[in-house]
């Protein structure tokens, strides 16, 4: 049985999917629906998908990785990145 979940790893161990994508937006959410990840007062990832700019996505991903926070991104990060 294949893993049909289209979402993929982000945050801890993942990479910014929008990196170098020319300003495209990425949707992010916390792995657990009740969790939050606050980069600053304006930039908060919750359990619901929310769209972030490429710059914010990169910042969020880097900070999440540093603090071992798992996030889900849509679209998922490119394989091997």
């Amino acid at each position, binding site marked *: *049985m*294949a*893993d*049909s*979940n289209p*979402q*993929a*790893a*982000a945050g801890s161990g*993942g990479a910014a999917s929008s990196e170098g994508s020319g300003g495209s937006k990425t949707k992010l959410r916390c*792995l*657990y*629906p*009740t*969790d*939050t*990840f*606050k*980069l*600053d007062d304006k930039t908060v990832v919750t359990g619901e998908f929310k769209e972030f700019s490429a710059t914010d996505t990169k910042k969020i991903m880097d*900070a*999440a990785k*540093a*603090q*071992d*926070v*798992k996030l*889900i991104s849509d679209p998922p990060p490119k394989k091997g990145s």
Partner: protein
Amino acid sequence: MAGLTPTYNRLNVMTGMAALWMQPYDPNTPAVLPDDDEVLGFTWTTPWEALGATLEGVTFGFARKANDIMIEEQPGPVDQRTESLSFTVAVELSEDTLETMRRAYGGGEINTTAPGAGQVGTKELVISSEIQHFALGLEGQAPPRTGLATPWRRVLIPDVTSVAEVETTYRRSDQQRTYKCTFTSLVPPEQVVIRELNAPAS
């Protein structure tokens, strides 16, 4: 004269550890096992999360309690019917993180604040009054088969809860801090997937 030696296959005698994986339970997106092509020891992709180090490995438990159906005319039962049946996975988690505490205590939310100018980064765990549901995956090695030296065996329990009395001892040097957990299956046995790789692709 040599005694009887029963027929056996020594390759089926197995030892070895199991890895546990967990993800939040979502009734709209049921958990699935990794692709069958993925090799033993492959890192299961998000939303699966590894449970990490344990004190004494993983214990996979199965218990069936049956009622004997008796008749006057026969001294033994004429049938046995299942009264209750449960799968459990017991483990003493050995990585002292807030994520481990959430799993052991049965659920909660983790709110993380990233560091910034003059602001340290923090993580805060709030234990939930209600029991949270998870999906649990287990992977171990299956008996070797022709062309397969280290095939996998994978188990998926789509809905579990963690209920246990957890005592974590903070000692100087005697032992690391651990979190004893018992995950109990909440699905009918037919929904528990127990699958192993036993032949390579042709």
